[in-house]
């Protein structure tokens, strides 16, 4: 684009939030801003935040949909704490979000939406835009976005309400001007999305986007502009990826490395549905997807597929995990490979289906009758879902066991840039199948891994029966006391034995010191950012963020022993903490947040400082 006359202020990182009605297209412009920033070479992380209702009534508080992202020239590991800039498309959006805007932050509002009826719906008694404090405390930019959008489209043949629907792109265009973002990625997106089917829609949106941009250029608004330089990223090919997409690719990559066919069976549930949807779109990879009648059926189909020699995979969220628990027991006692993805959301019960939480760790550990451990692995960032998915496939096939992949809404729908791996360099994943000439006893085990071997239908000579009744080594139903004790212990030891196959645990910082921050899964970003910041300030703090939760790493107890204090931040009431204390008898300090939101870096910093 043409360079503007305004001077740019250089920033290391910026946090911006778009907020409007559910129908206002905030998720779309958020994604576009993200793409544009990625294209500009920034590191970034995103946090979409939308209501559980499809389109809550226009103008109301519960109907507000938001999208926050942080982009920076330095490493960005979280979507940021308080936003530096807020785009509020209506009074409700202002009401819901204003409190979090940093003092002095940039506040862009669509004045047209601040009509009486909307103010009322948002619970404003008077127009906040007329309140002086707003312009005192923030850099308030009032734009009649709706009107300007209409003007930009005055020559278009679209209906008025269709035109109005383009207004999000006006707001986007203006922010592009403020933050010096390239327009091309968005123009390309619009052309490829609408260009063929509805070229007038593409054109209109592009026109409005540019109008927003030039509005900054041409008006007399004394607006600062900011620049965020390219991040210093390692060389490579990058793309933006969210957790569920990474998970989908990770599963495909895993089965490819294992030369296995995948049968995926899911039942829609937020925020796991897009895994089913993502895989369903990949039929050309030979993937079979089945939308089952419920979550019980979904795991049943997957387990059946694994018994038949393919790899069965399913994905769900908390309530669906409840329903899978009986089948999890069957999959673990029959010792068949299976990957069960749980994308955690706010609970309990139906809870807060579109908010994030780490509530299902203990359910994953213990949510079935009797002692029956199942390996659990949690990704730490959106792109890590790719790697964890592969690791789950590896363990499922090597040990012939179900594995729980414990993801989080925050990762599933959050995005970050991802340096693409060269798939041809990834290791093969071996399957643990009986080989011709080998004697087959169902529960005969490898003395090292304790894993059994499988044989599957179609293989002559290995006909056998499995099932949920306790069995002896050769697979006969057995109610024998000693056999049951032995089998129960060995099932537990087999899961423990996986720990031997894990690399040493990475400690971020010194390997001993005053405080260790111990987290798991999606808190990685906030923990690491906070710890890095404090380390830079010279504090004696290190961090470990676990991916392998069951079994816990063999070296963990030793690592814990090298620190004076252990802080365990979790988005639950202390689930990992109970396990750590129970296993290692090591006193720990809990830092627990159950608000449907991730930790902010600053609250993490504050908590750590409190302990140092």
């Amino acid at each position, binding site marked *: 684009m043409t360079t503007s006359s305004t001077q740019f202020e250089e920033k290391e990182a910026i946090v911006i939030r778009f907020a409007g009605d559910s129908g206002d297209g905030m998720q779309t412009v958020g994604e576009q801003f993200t*793409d544009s920033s*990625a*294209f500009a*070479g920034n590191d970034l992380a995103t946090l979409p935040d939308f209501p559980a209702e499809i389109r809550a009534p226009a103008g109301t508080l519960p109907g507000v949909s938001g999208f926050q992202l942080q982009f920076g020239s330095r490493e960005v590991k979280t979507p940021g704490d308080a936003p530096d800039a807020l785009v509020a498309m209506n009074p409700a959006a202002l009401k819901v979000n204003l409190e979090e805007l940093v003092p002095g932050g940039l506040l862009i509002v669509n004045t047209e939406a601040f009509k009486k009826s909307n103010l009322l719906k948002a619970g404003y008694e008077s127009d906040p835009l007329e309140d002086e404090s707003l312009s005192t405390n923030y850099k308030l930019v009032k734009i009649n976005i709706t009107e300007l959008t209409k003007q930009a489209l005055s020559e278009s043949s679209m209906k008025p309400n269709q035109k109005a629907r383009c207004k999000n792109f006006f707001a986007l265009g203006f922010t592009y001007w403020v933050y010096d973002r390239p327009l091309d*990625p968005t123009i390309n997106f619009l052309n490829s999305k609408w260009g063929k089917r509805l070229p007038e829609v593409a054109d209109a949106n592009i026109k409005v986007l540019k109008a927003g941009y030039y509005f900054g250029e041409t008006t007399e608004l004394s607006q600062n502009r900011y620049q965020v330089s390219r991040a210093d*990223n390692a*060389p*490579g*090919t*990058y*793309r933006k990826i969210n957790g569920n997409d990474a998970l989908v*690719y990770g599963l*495909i990559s895993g089965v*490819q490395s294992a030369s296995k*066919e995948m*049968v995926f*069976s899911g039942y829609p549930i937020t925020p796991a549905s897009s895994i089913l949807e993502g895989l369903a779109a*990949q*039929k*050309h*990879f*030979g*993937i*079979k997807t089945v939308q089952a*009648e*419920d979550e019980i*059926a979904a795991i*049943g*189909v997957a*387990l*059946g*597929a*694994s*018994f*038949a020699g*393919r790899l*069965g995979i399913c994905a769900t969220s908390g309530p669906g995990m409840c329903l899978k628990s*009986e*089948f999890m027991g*069957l999959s673990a006692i029959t010792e068949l490979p299976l990957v069960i993805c749980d994308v955690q959301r706010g609970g309990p019960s139906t809870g807060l289906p579109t908010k994030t939480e780490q509530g299902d760790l203990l359910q994953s550990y213990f949510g079935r009758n009797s002692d029956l451990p199942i390996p659990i692995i949690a990704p730490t960032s959106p792109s890590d879902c790719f790697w964890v998915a592969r690791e789950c496939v590896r363990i499922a096939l090597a040990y012939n066991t179900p594995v729980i992949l414990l993801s989080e809404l925050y990762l599933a729908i959050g995005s970050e840039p991802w*340096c*693409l791996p*060269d*798939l041809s360099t990834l290791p093969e994943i071996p399957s643990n199948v009986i080989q*011709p000439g080998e*004697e*087959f*006893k169902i529960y005969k085990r490898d003395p090292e891994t304790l894993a059994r071997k499988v044989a599957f*239908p179609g293989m*002559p*000579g*290995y*006909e*056998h*029966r499995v*099932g*949920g*009744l306790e069995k002896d080594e050769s697979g*006969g*139903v057995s109610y024998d006391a000693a056999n049951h004790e032995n089998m129960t212990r060995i099932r537990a030891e087999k899961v423990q034995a996986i720990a031997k196959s894990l690399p040493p645990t990475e400690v971020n910082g010194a390997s001993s010191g005053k405080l260790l921050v111990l987290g798991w899964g999606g808190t990685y970003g906030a923990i690491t950012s906070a710890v890095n910041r404090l380390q830079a300030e010279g504090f004696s703090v290190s961090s470990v963020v676990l991916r392998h939760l069951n079994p816990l790493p063999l070296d963990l107890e030793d690592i814990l022993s090298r620190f004076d204090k252990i802080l365990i931040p979790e988005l639950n009431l202390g689930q990992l903490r109970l396990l750590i204390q129970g296993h290692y008898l090591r006193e720990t300090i809990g830092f627990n947040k159950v608000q449907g939101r991730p930790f902010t870096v600053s609250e993490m910093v504050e908590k750590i400082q409190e302990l140092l």
Partner: protein
Amino acid sequence: MSTETLESPQPLTKKDFVPPNEVRWCPGCGDYAILNSIQKTFPELGVPREKFVVVSGIGCSSRFPYYMQTYGFHTIHGRAPTLATGVKVANPDLSVWMITGDGDGLSIGGNHLLHVLRRNPNINILLFNNRVYGLTKGQYSPTSDVGMKTKSTPMGSIDHPVNPIQFAIGAEASFIARTVDTDPKHMVETFKAAHAHKGVSFVEILQNCVIYNKDVWEDVYGRDARAEQILYLADGQPLIYGKDKDKGIRLNNLDPEIVTLGESGASEGELLQHNPKEANSLYTTLLSQLVHPQFPTPVGVFRALERPVYEDSLQAQIDAAQESKGQGDLQTSLVGGGSWVVE
């Protein structure tokens, strides 16, 4: 399970399907006869032994896989249809047989049964209907009559029973049949027909639980009753029954009615003619309404309709996708939506 017999024996005999372990049903249980008939049927299907998979839920009937020298899976209560679907979808080449009971299939498992029937994978489902929960020691089941006194209903059941055939129609099953545990020949015939059908086959088997519901079917298929009470369905044949083949079923508006054939009675031409290919649900519904004691009990193939087979449709989509997009190349897909290079 030695490694010597890597090739499945050909030709197969009944003995090839008898595993070394003991059968643990009660002496006299109807399940033995069914097991026997299946073991007789399998060698005659031309399917190598290693390609049979027997899947079941939980119940006396559902112990079945343990008694078949094939691949087998004794799953959990009510969920066999899901697992069987997974097996078949994963490997359409296998011959999948699912065993369930009236409790397993119609109480806890009713929903999965509904959905497997409507999806129409090529699976053979045998529902052992003894109108009671055997394994949990004799509570009433969804097929028990109103008034049945059991441990859990000491004053009699108050639940209107499910008619398994009517249920299968409601689920749009493409193949529906019924047979009885006392007639090995008819069982084998019916099982073969189920196997021959492309798509899901639903077979209700009237089965005797000698411990908790002894002789529940005696009035239908008992030595004395049988000849007058069983209506053998035969493709293209009129609905005739009775020791002397002198009774038949005629349609009176939408009501079935029993007529006596011959001299002063009705003529064969008035009778309904059996047509398992009749796609209209009304005819199958009519058969489902022939219920003891008002009517004779039909056995045989009620319905056999051609419908797209689930796993075939699934494979067809994969083939189509690969045809149009080529076999997936993951590295390319990764770059896919948009990427940039840092040098």
